[in-house]
């Protein structure tokens, strides 16, 4: 059976490598997050066939990056085959960014850096993020950034050019259609820029449109789990009118290459 046929039967895609490049973990201020723990996420992952989830904790993109990073470090140590974490830094604590990154990368299961400029009240190009970009550039690791709107996408264009060895993942692919159009051009322009499809506004035909515009090699499966459920984004991709190879690229092969580049 192909991916479409498996999805119609509600079967986990066990023969497809699925790496969810955009996850969270734990409770959140604004709403209820049932089963938001690592174990709750594993239940969701197993039902769909997600091999590896790449989380940043809600606490870390919110008020306490140490609390959040510890939560993720604990998860990757407990389930090393199922989680690969991001170290999240907060630009409002610039003097601790280098220390926190060093502390995080001591753990084998941490594979990248997460930035949430919107929650932390700074822009993607704020100077306090420079340390994080420099570390990512030297380690050749991914940087997952919350990218929402045209302004954010255009900042990625400039930052990615300054740090060509880091892999930049535009979370939510820019979110709105105008921003996505620019994002598609930027992922084609820069070898080191990717876009993930995590967004609750699950538009009909959006995956097909992104693949036609940017190519399946630059699009990543990200679900935002457990901020919201992984099944809608999974379904958008599994049912998309694109080739089986395109789906496999997006589901996991592209992110595998990004992680391997860091680990080499």
């Amino acid at each position, binding site marked *: 059976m192909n991916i479409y046929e498996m999805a119609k039967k509600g079967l986990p895609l066990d023969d497809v490598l699925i790496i969810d490049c955009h996850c969270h973990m734990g409770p959140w201020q604004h*709403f209820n*997050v049932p089963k938001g723990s690592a174990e709750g996420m594993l239940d969701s992952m197993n039902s769909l066939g997600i091999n590896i989830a790449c989380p940043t904790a809600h606490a870390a993109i919110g008020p306490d990056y140490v609390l959040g990073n510890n939560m993720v470090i604990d998860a990757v140590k407990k389930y090393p085959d199922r989680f690969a974490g991001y170290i999240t830094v907060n630009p409002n604590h610039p003097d601790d960014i280098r220390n926190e990154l060093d502390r995080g990368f001591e753990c084998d299961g941490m594979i990248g850096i997460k930035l949430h400029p919107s929650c932390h009240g700074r822009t993607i190009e704020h100077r306090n993020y420079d340390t994080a970009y420099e570390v990512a550039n030297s380690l050749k690791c991914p940087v997952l950034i919350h990218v929402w709107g045209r302004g954010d996408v255009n900042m990625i264009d400039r930052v990615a050019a300054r740090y060509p060895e880091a892999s930049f993942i535009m979370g939510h692919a820019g979110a709105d259609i105008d921003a996505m159009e620019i994002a598609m051009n930027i992922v084609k322009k820069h070898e080191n820029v990717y876009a993930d499809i995590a967004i609750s506004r699950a*538009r*009909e*035909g959006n995956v097909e*449109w992104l693949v036609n515009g940017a190519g399946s090699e630059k699009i990543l499966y990200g679900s935002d789990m457990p901020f919201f459920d992984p099944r809608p984004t999974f379904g958008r991709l599994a049912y998309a009118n694109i080739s089986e190879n395109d789906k496999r690229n997006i589901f996991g092969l592209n992110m595998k290459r990004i992680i391997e580049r860091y680990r080499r």
Partner: protein
Amino acid sequence: MEEIKYFDCNCNFGMRGVIDPGSFYKVEDLKKRMEHYGISKALVYHSLAREYSPMVGNAMLMDEIQKYPEFYPMWAVMPHHTNEFYTPSELKEKLRINNVRAVCIFPGVNEQFFSTQNWICGELFKMLESCKIPLFAGMTQLGFSEIARICTEYPGLTIILTDLSYSIDRNLYGLLGSFKNLNIEISGYKVHNGIEEICEKFGADRMIFGSKMPEFSGGAAVSMVNYARISDKEKQMIAHENIEKLLEGVVLS
């Protein structure tokens, strides 16, 4: 898993002011996408009944779905006081003649902009309640307090909340616990493990499958049910049995 029969209770077709790339608007394209996603029947409204005029859009709906037996009409309704729409008694007769068994309202400020208080919609709600016609209404258009008031004052009126979000539980649980006449359409309900939680706390009979095509993805919608960690019976209830039961219970005579 046995094959799930999907009855989509929230989709539409017709021209819209905003059509995202990759989406569609023609009735024949809705039919094709439904087939792709394994959806066999649908309750549909016309986009012009929402974005332009219920009278115009409802008429276009009836005309365009004639050759599609798998499409069941859902009319957008509104208050009658300005003579833009039928009085409740006229509406009741029109619904009977056209065998329309579900209606929707779009009272939001940025949509058809009317109050749902009794001095505006009271007669309409009473008629719908007496005929057991389910009313589809957007969460964002009504607000929690108004939903609670309508549920309280019209206990026989079945309300199906649409346009839910992943952030709604803290208010939704209280509403579902308090009002048995309240149900949810799940296309927007993307809470992590949310379907499983609602099944356990309130029962699968409170959820109704909808895709919100062509704005939202049919693949996203069916995957929420296909992969739900609930029984096959509960999946069938959500996918088609609950809405079929509601439509069968409508009294138009």
